[in-house]
């Protein structure tokens, strides 16, 4: 079928059609895009995030990386300084422009964690970005941790390398299955160079009593676009404990769709967005309580300088059966300039009656008294601001239990902050 005139996804559909062979998932994605195109601001879920920076690009789907691209990717990998955090020897899966890069990866012990190539298949994850991912789906990694096993740490590194005209786009589709009673601590880092679009989807299935910690560091190149989706399903007594830190990209949106389908399951969707200049970052989550006595927690902090803009949309759905639900959601913004902006949309949809749900949002500037106190002790104003920003983020980052992982994020925050301060 030809691209529809006036459809803002026409370019992507043309790329899809040109690829010929296609899976059912890919056809489902394409059908969704053909029907409505990519969402415009008049679509409720996209009220605050404008996709025109994406639709205005001349896009292509990234080829398997050349030697030159791999060399650039290797440079990016070194730049992450994994050794500094004692992570150089930890199992890692590296993807370059959406393609697996075995030469840069370190495979985990297969007894703890099996890794296979995952063709793009299964049902379409919710959201327009997942539809786009499916349309041009490249497949990805399928991870499985056997029952009762603690698989320890795994790094998932997605490196984008944009070169030449237009934007290469990557659409990896990864899957994680944790069998009953198993554990995994996943640290996902997205970084890159040049102009590119990273559009990953991660499907998470946690069986009874399985625990996944998923910490994301989004530190994409300044010109890049980052549009990611996570779909997580948590069975009885399991937990999906996530933290997403947005530092990079010109336009970013991270969507989380998490469902607690068994009693006593727990979901955390925490995060921080540290933005400057013209950056726009959006954290959108839909957390569904589908079983009794489940627990969802959300603390999101935003630090906004320049003319940056952050969006937080947090929907919590409590189905009728989900009695004894405990839900907490907090979104806070520190506005460091008059032109920075935060848009917050909390949504509670509660159909059960025995439920504890609280949510709150605050936005404000740095406290002048605190700033003066630090300066009166000789701390230069730039350093004083950095201290207060770090303090503001501290209780969010503090939600990451693992010290090593938290250290990676703290260092990334410091580096990003130093970069900004020296630009001033």
């Amino acid at each position, binding site marked *: 079928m030809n691209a529809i005139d006036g459809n803002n996804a026409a370019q992507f559909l043309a790329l899809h059609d040109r690829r010929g062979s296609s899976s059912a998932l890919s056809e489902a994605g394409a059908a969704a895009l053909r029907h409505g195109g990519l969402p415009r601001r008049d679509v409720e879920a996209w009220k605050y995030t404008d996709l025109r920076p994406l639709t205005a690009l001349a896009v292509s789907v990234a080829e398997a990386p050349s030697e030159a691209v791999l060399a650039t990717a290797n440079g990016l990998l070194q730049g992450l300084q994994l050794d500094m955090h004692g992570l150089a020897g930890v199992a890692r899966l590296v993807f370059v422009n959406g393609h697996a890069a075995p030469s840069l990866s370190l495979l985990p012990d297969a007894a703890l964690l099996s890794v296979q190539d995952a063709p793009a298949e299964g049902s379409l994850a919710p959201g327009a970005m997942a539809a786009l991912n499916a349309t041009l789906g490249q497949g990805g990694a399928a991870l499985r941790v056997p029952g009762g096993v603690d698989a320890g740490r795994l790094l998932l590194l997605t490196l984008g390398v944009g070169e030449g005209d237009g934007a290469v786009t990557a659409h990896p589709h990864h899957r994680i299955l944790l069998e009953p009673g198993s554990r995994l601590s996943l640290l996902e880092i997205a970084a890159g160079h040049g102009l590119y679009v990273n559009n990953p989807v991660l499907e998470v299935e946690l069986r009874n009593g399985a625990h996944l910690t998923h910490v994301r560091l989004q530190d994409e190149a300044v010109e890049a676009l980052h549009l990611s989706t996570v779909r997580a399903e948590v069975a009885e007594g399991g937990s999906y404990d996530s933290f997403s830190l947005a530092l990079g990209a010109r336009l970013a949106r991270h969507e989380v769709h998490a469902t607690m389908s068994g009693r006593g399951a727990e979901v955390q969707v925490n995060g921080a967005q540290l933005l400057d200049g013209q950056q726009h970052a959006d954290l959108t989550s839909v957390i569904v309580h589908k079983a009794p006595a489940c627990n969802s927690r959300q603390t999101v902090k935003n630090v906004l300088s320049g003319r940056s803009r952050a969006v937080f949309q947090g929907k919590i759905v409590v189905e009728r059966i989900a009695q004894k639900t405990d839900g907490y959601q907090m979104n806070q913004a520190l506005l460091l300039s008059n032109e920075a902006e935060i848009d917050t949309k909390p949504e509670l949809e509660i159909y059960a009656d025995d439920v504890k749900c609280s949510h709150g949002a605050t936005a404000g500037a740095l406290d*002048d*008294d*605190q700033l*003066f*106190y*630090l*300066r*009166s*002790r*000789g*701390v*230069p*104003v730039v*350093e*004083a601001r950095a*201290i*207060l920003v*770090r*303090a*503001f*983020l*501290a*209780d969010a980052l503090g939600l990451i239990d693992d010290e090593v992982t938290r250290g990676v994020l703290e260092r990334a925050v410091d580096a990003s902050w130093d970069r900004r301060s020296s630009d001033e």
Partner: protein
Amino acid sequence: MSTVLTINALHAKIDDAGTDKPILKGVDLVVPPGEVHAIMGPNGSGKSTLSYVLSGRADYEVTGGTVAFGEQDLLAMEPEERAAAGLFLAFQAPIELPGVNNANFLRTAVNAVRRARGEPELDAVAFLKLARAECKRLGIPDAMLKRAVNVGFSGGEKKRNEVLQMSLLRPRFAILDETDSGLDIDALRIVAEGVNALRAPDFSALIITHHQRLLDYIVPDHVHVMSAGRIIRSGGPELARQLEAEGYANLIAEAA
């Protein structure tokens, strides 16, 4: 190096809900090196305002007068520059910094000031050793170093933490704004000892207080009375005792 503080006809105002409110209305004061001066005066007379203006808080606008700190024009300096030059203010109401570890805060401050003064910075180990020693001397439990700055500190603990900062920063000129209020009797003596330990030919202090008691421990060279934004009377230590006995009414009536 001797640093004299010379305040000349200082006027300052604050923006109070859109209207100008003059607070300092011509303060004249000279504190020579090596001397300790006390300022007393009724609530709301402008004592804290003076201390904030001297340390560079932005809320106040200086509308007239000059302040020289040694050779330097104090009012032209940023707050951090004043600290580096050796000025220290112990706040009447110390500020809480949630999420900022007290030991890190103290080390950052000490090193910022050392850097500005061209001295080598202290590493974490050297600093902790120094901080522990000062804590011990001031009767402050080490545990206070591990907490967030002033968060959940009792009134007296906050004041002790101010004195700890002063001891670590080794200023040449300290302003203590009611550091004695809220302190128990033992703490009062410890704070006084903290100040007395710094007394030297090149150290001076301005002590704002409502109570004669502190001045029994830290005997001032001069006592000034501030009322309605001006110094209305200066004298020796006996002036403090006279005020304790008689109150401010007579003095204020005389000055009017």
